[in-house]
């Protein structure tokens, strides 16, 4: 009996600690429940890891919301949390957010989107972004329709366009190297797609799988010595250590192609790729539609349909390369200097 009392006391203690803290956020959300655009709404944004592309997604998301009339500080309050790439945290953040009953939850990157969808339990609409393959993540059906109170945008890479672009830049190249993390579902599927499409452009893919950041220096140096160029994915771990990869490629005298504008700004030579701010904007616009009353369930997930060519002339000339004439007209300069 005593033991039981002790347990109860302990749980009560935990209860009071929590309710003392969580009360203000629940109070806010109650007032925002009627989600007419004029009234203030609460939106929770859960980001999986601190990293440039995902930060851009969140920035774009807010811009997209703003364009639809939801201005931060005026009629929308954001609760932004970052799981610091820790799954245990991701899960708990998603659950705490769902507990505060916001009007909408935005999950950034695949594991976070899944955790949010699970925690929201169909009661709160979930909008995801930066999920490469929503079908494989079971957030969408094969036909693109939603599996529940959830929808969003995919950051699927334009692999075909990227290969075509690399061929134009390097007419004689044979081997493309790809460095990726074996634990990232998005990267695994992208590598598969590269391998499938590479023969169409007469390329051979040399992939190198790592499991953590500390593997990158060795793996990058090894890969750079074996290939004619490197094509970089949106792999969270590799992108966080992009400088290391660029360094290894520079020593080997080969170019690194990126997969989004931010990577080109950091020193990749070119990309036929994504602009995460635009992706975030598109997501924000979808969120606004849901807040205005549309059902997330009825909105199929969206992909970026227009990819653009970004180049870094400085990085190109350092390698004695230049942008092919046929691409010059469509290329946008994206070096950090500007």
């Amino acid at each position, binding site marked *: 009996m*005593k*033991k039981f009392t*002790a*347990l109860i006391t*302990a*749980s009560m203690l*935990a*209860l009071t*600690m*929590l*309710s003392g*803290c*969580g009360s*203000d*956020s629940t109070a806010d959300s109650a007032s925002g429940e009627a989600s007419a655009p004029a009234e203030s709404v609460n939106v929770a944004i859960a*980001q999986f890891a*601190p990293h440039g592309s995902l930060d851009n997604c969140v920035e774009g998301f807010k811009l997209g919301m703003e364009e639809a009339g939801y201005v931060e500080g005026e009629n929308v309050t954001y*609760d*932004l*949390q*970052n799981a*610091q*790439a*820790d*799954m*245990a*945290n991701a*899960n*708990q*953040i998603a*659950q*705490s957010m*769902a*507990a*505060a*009953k916001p009007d909408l939850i935005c999950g950034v990157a*695949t*594991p976070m989107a*899944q*955790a949010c*969808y*699970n*925690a929201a339990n169909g009661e709160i609409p979930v909008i995801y972004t930066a999920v490469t393959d929503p079908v*494989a*993540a*079971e*957030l969408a059906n094969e036909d693109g329709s939603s*599996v529940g109170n959830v929808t969003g945008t995919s950051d699927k890479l334009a692999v075909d366009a990227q290969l075509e672009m690399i061929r134009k830049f390097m007419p004689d190249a044979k081997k493309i190297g790809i460095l990726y993390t*074996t*634990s*990232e*579902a998005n990267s*695994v599927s992208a590598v598969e797609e590269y391998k499938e499409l590479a023969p169409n452009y007469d390329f051979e893919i040399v992939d190198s799988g790592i*499991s953590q950041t500390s593997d990158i220096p060795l793996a990058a140096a090894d890969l750079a010595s074996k290939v004619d160029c490197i094509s970089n994915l949106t792999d969270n771990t590799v992108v966080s250590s992009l400088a290391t990869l660029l360094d290894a490629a520079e020593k080997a005298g080969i170019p690194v192609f990126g997969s989004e504008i931010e990577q080109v700004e950091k020193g990749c030579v070119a990309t036929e790729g994504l602009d995460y701010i635009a992706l975030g904007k598109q997501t924000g616009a979808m969120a606004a539609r849901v807040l205005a009353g549309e059902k997330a369930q009825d909105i199929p997930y969206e992909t970026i349909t227009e990819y653009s060519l970004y180049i870094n002339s400085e990085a190109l000339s350092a390698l004695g390369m230049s942008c092919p004439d046929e691409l010059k007209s469509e290329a946008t300069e994206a070096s950090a200097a500007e």
Partner: protein
Amino acid sequence: MALVLSVFEQGFIYSILALGIYITYKILDFPDLSVDSSFPLGAAVSAVMIKAGVNPYITLPAAFLAGGMAGLATGIIHVKFKVRDLLSGIITMTMLYSINLHITGGQANIPIFSDDTIFKLSPIRDKAGAFNTVIVIFVITLLCKIIMDLYLNTKSGYLLRAVGDNETVVTSLAKDKGTVKIVGLIIANALVALAGSVMCQQQRFFDISMGTGTIVIGLASVIIGTNVFGKLSFLKATTAVIIGSVIYKACVAIAITCGMAAIDMKLITGALFLVILIISSVKKGGAD
């Protein structure tokens, strides 16, 4: 209320693995790092079996057995090949990463949103409503605790405790201390993998990175539990560990909900632990 429920859900799930870490860290004095991979091992086994249409309740003993094998590997590396304790855990953890990916057929993430889980098939699902998940998890945790309490009072359990306290006693009883250590590691990792299985079904997806930092959560739960509640003689150590795990998750929840900047979350969590440990050591009349 939902937040409190989630703290108990998470706390109870992690307390299953904390019970395992209690065996290695507190009883055997063995810093076993293999748990960072045996946690996702249990989840991988469960997700793959569930995808294959196996009854989710069968995945629990299956994950338990798989974890036991991971513990056996660490034990053999340490006892038979005389590799240092810390390193033998690291070796198992490293190799298991690849094995886990082999189990899933190379997939780093397996969602089971549309499949049956122990929670979906729970017999009390309709009656319990929102409490279904926490009750199911609590029952599993309670079973683990009761079985472990009973086991620690058997002859084998006594030997286990003796190895951590005084190895000579075990040797003088003509028992092989190495075997006892292996048994301890098997039970510990089996519990950790079981927690992984429950976690995977609660969050409804497996991700290869879900084991990162497991050892830290487990150790913190064990230390908070035994430091704060261990001196209360009417509380069994296993109960203290479970409470410790719930407190750990409560600290994280506070750090999340208190509206601090996202980047400060870990700082707040750490500071809360420090406060708890300082208060408990003051109560006891100074640190030991």
